[in-house]
């Protein structure tokens, strides 16, 4: 028997999950959890509805808070994708949110839920890591921020406790930064990514001031190699440099093989799509 409790406060929600002792789960849009229930892959007695939480400032909103872009825990992927703020400040995140699942999933699923699910073949995690975003969680007593790159630890696994409620995502806003996300699908255009590439960069006088390249969908967690990208700092992002970074990433990655592509193919797609994402970023910097 599954019961559904609708929570008005974050503390209530956390308490409900804690009281469930492993049999209660947060549910926002429900797209992931209901699927697991239908497939009898999870045993859940209590669904803790968080859509109705009213005591978290900015729960349902996207707002600029100083030098941070805040996306509340109740915000759907469709809202992220359509937000002028996100499109302006973090276009790669708007792009990633706009290609998750389909229009129906994006209308129901929240960015917070997407993070908590930690699906390796979903688009936003790599982008959040590339933007150096923080995931803000409430544990019933207090809030804390965890860097996105420290959240994703394995396939469908995070460093968060099951009673940690994601109440929002904080994306740092950096002057002059540009970003891009490329989803590469190997079958239907509607497929989940075979490879996802998130790039975030800042340019100073035509040279790279900072560069992050994060690969999604190729292994359990978003993959990044700062030692490769840091070598670009201070240099112009010209074609040979982009090709070199792409080659190094292709060498560094240890891809899975699944129905969307073999390890060999994924490695090649990392090579091509890293280069193309860098070209995109370089072009947008020139604009």
């Amino acid at each position: 028997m599954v019961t559904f409790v609708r929570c008005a406060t974050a503390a209530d929600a956390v308490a409900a999950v804690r009281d469930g002792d492993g049999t209660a789960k947060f549910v926002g849009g429900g797209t992931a959890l209901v699927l697991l229930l239908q497939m009898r892959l999870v045993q859940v007695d209590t669904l803790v509805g968080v859509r109705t939480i009213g005591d978290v400032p900015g729960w349902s909103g996207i707002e600029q808070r100083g030098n941070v872009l805040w996306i509340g825990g109740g915000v759907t992927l469709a809202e992220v994708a359509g937000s002028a703020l996100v499109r302006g400040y973090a276009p790669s995140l708007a792009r990633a949110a706009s290609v998750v699942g389909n229009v129906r999933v994006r209308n129901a699923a929240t960015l917070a839920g997407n993070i908590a699910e930690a699906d390796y073949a979903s688009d936003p995690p790599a982008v959040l890591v590339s933007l150096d975003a923080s995931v803000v969680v409430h544990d019933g007593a207090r809030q804390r921020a965890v860097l996105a790159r420290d959240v994703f630890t394995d396939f469908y696994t995070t460093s968060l406790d099951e009673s940690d409620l994601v109440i929002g995502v904080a994306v740092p806003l950096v002057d002059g930064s540009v970003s891009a996300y490329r989803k590469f699908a190997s079958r239907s255009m509607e497929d989940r990514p075979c490879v996802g590439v998130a790039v975030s960069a800042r340019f100073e006088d035509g040279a790279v001031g900072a560069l992050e390249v994060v690969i999604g969908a190729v292994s359990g967690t978003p993959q990044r190699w700062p030692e490769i990208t840091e070598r670009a700092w201070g240099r112009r992002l010209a074609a040979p440099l982009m090709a070199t970074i792409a080659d190094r990433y292709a060498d560094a990655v240890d891809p899975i093989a699944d129905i969307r592509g073999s390890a060999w193919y994924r490695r090649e797609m990392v090579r091509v799509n890293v280069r193309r994402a860098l070209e995109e970023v370089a072009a947008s910097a020139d604009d």
Partner: protein
Amino acid sequence: MTSVEFRLNGAQVAFDVAGRETLLETLRDTAGTTSVRYCCGIGVCGTCTVLLDALPVSSCLLLTVMVDGRDVVTAEGADVRHSPVTRRVRDAFVDAQAYQCSYCIPAIALTVRGLLQQDPEMDADELKTALGGNLCRCGSYPQVLDAVRRLVGTSGRRGGEQDG
């Protein structure tokens, strides 16, 4: 069993449902709204689309207990008098003969209607992209696009780069 109340096509309804029952099951098996159809069961095909608080969602990915107090509209939703968009969408699909077996079609028309009600300025390209998640095995896509173009014309809202 849990008692759930929500608005269905404008009328207040109440059902006793099992906790694990999906909205798709309630709508088909109890409410008799047979326009809402099972196909993939995992939210990828779109045949079970409903409008939840005016937005298209998959009813197979919602437990009925989760829609308590909310507003659900199905393709049957008889709001023709109040919604010119509904009527225009239906006419466009009939005029374009945008169906073969038609199992998927009410959901596609409902999705178009939901999207246009949300954003009346959507152009044909945007609607096509949004319809990527509505599968039609008969391949009636050219006729669906014809219906869409009858609705919103062929010129894109951003100056467009239409073919043909």
